[in-house]
């Protein structure tokens, strides 16, 4: 049984013995560890073998992402090619990093989908790839396949991807969803 009355201390204060306090031996030991790694990698490189696991991004990309990896977003389309997204902004609401920005537009001609995203922008320099946007979406309009964004840049502004790219880089259609017919007869029609 835990002693609930006493506050548990989670921070271990460092205790330095005589060996640590004498400073130099521990420094030399640390240098020996890093020096050993350098020497080993150098030896492998000189003998034309792979040294460290570091990939030389962006020229070199690792291919061993897990099957369930959540990478770059896809915006799904309806059968007619328009985005499935209804600009309800629940993904932007759920996003813990606040990286999704959507500008909604009104289309009176499409009675079943009067609201659609005129712009849809994601900032990959801040995205944490948590997938909450995918879970929040009520329309299956946003998905995250395995592929990673691959946006190396010296400028954060270039790490934004916009609607047309997200619709087009890996086209997915969500044709399964039936939509109700428009208003039947009543009143004087859906005038605007």
């Amino acid at each position: 049984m835990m002693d609930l009355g006493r506050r548990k201390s989670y921070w271990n204060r460092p205790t330095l013995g005589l060996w640590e306090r004498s400073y130099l031996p521990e420094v030399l030991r640390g240098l020996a560890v890093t020096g050993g790694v350098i020497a080993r990698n150098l030896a492998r490189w000189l003998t034309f073998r792979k040294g460290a696991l570091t990939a030389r991004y962006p020229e070199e990309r690792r291919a061993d992402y897990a099957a369930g990896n959540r990478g770059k977003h896809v915006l799904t389309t309806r059968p007619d090619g328009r985005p499935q997204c209804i600009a309800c902004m629940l993904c932007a609401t759920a996003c813990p990093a606040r990286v999704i920005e959507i500008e909604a537009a009104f289309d009176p001609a499409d009675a079943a989908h009067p609201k659609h995203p005129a712009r849809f922008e994601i900032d990959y320099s801040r995205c944490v790839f948590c997938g909450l946007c995918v879970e929040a979406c009520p329309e299956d309009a946003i998905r995250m396949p395995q592929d990673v964004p691959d946006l190396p840049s010296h400028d954060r502004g270039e790490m934004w991807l916009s609607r047309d790219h997200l619709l087009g880089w890996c086209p997915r259609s969500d044709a399964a969803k039936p939509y109700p017919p428009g208003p039947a007869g009543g009143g004087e029609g859906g005038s605007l």
Partner: protein
Amino acid sequence: MTRIFLNGREIEVAADTTVLRAALDNGVYVPYFCWHPRLSVAGNCRICMVEVEGKGLDIACNMPVSEGMKVLTDSDEVRAARKAMMQFLTLNHPVDCGICDKAGECTLQDYHFAYNGAPSISAEPKVRATKFHDLGDRILIDNERCIVCSRCVRFTHEVSRSKALGIQGRGDTSLVRCEEGRRFDDPYSDNVIDLCPVGALLSRSFLYKARVWFLEATPSVCPGCARGCAIRIWHLRADRRLQRLDPRRNLEIARVTPLDDPAVNGPWICNKGRDLAAIFERPRADQAMLRGRPVPLAEAISEARRLVDGAKRRTALVSSWGSDGELAAFRDHLAARFDVRVKPDHVPQPGEIVEDDILIRADKNPNTRGARALFGERPVAFEPGTDLVLVWGEGFDYSRVPAGAKVVLLGSYLAPENGAADVFLPISVQTERDGSYTNSDGIARRFEACFPPGETIAHAADLFAAIGGRP
């Protein structure tokens, strides 16, 4: 006074009140759609059912209190009746909260979670009705969302008295419509958007602009006329500022809604108050100038100071859009050396309603009374020999400036006279500062800053201190 028992608790209430009011006043919430404290009782939504012991269920909004009555607001019967009523109200209501502007502040949505929570038990398909029907230049109606509570109809009959709206048809084909051949041209029309307990009545200007939970409201005062209605100015929340989309939207007024102030405006404002963005978001002047030559603000201030000190006979035209604090700053720092006149910044525009017996006042300036209390009621005129005119704000005809007089102008918006003034100083607008206005009835109300002023823009009160204060 009448003694009633509310959920077993004995309370004293006024003899002429209703059970719904008695419950709300005593901290017991009874849900309601069609009832509104400022409108007549319609009793058609049937959600405010309560149980009177020994008499069964009835609606609380239309139930007068009687001595010794025992009211239960949360018995099993009441809960069952509410749940059944919610099923009925949502029978034909589309589940399109995702694209509904009311979502997040919708009474039907809140009550669904509070009192129903179950999916529809109806096997019939929902009745389809007109979507986005054009009621007028400002308002659309989505008849599928409408629950026919008739609040909007009663508003146009009882408050704005335009009698513009009515309900045609019956049952599930009821439609809220304008009088035949008429458009919804009521000057108070936008109040029905707030009144609507669902998302049926939609503002064209706010349609799909933002989800309401991305916005925050700053309490403010409408400067549209001398009534000084209490309002809320809605703008993007600080943690929802846009980076990629148009960053100007971060500093824009998303919408304006009334703030209930029984002493001033009640829960209503006129349509001019809804369109404050048209006043405050005109192109702004943000550059200090000497005769049209851009200079740093500090240089313009010292030039203004030099002109004021050097003049012999000075006249100041103070703004009736200045806050009480700014007017007091002017009095403290400059008024002693000036012949001070209060200037009307705005006059009624062509086509604008000048005055009515509901809210709108003829004086289109928010603080004329506050300014006149400090500086008197003399009209704008110049004593002979005036060689310096300090103009604060808009609405002055510069052809009236006496020949040879220097002009120091404090303005917020781009205007041709800015470049002609000897000194032009850019000042903040109401949405960029705190302050208060005194309305035509002498009631002072505070407003708060929504947005930060630009770096090159000064507050008028600081300028008065800098120009008139001791060096």
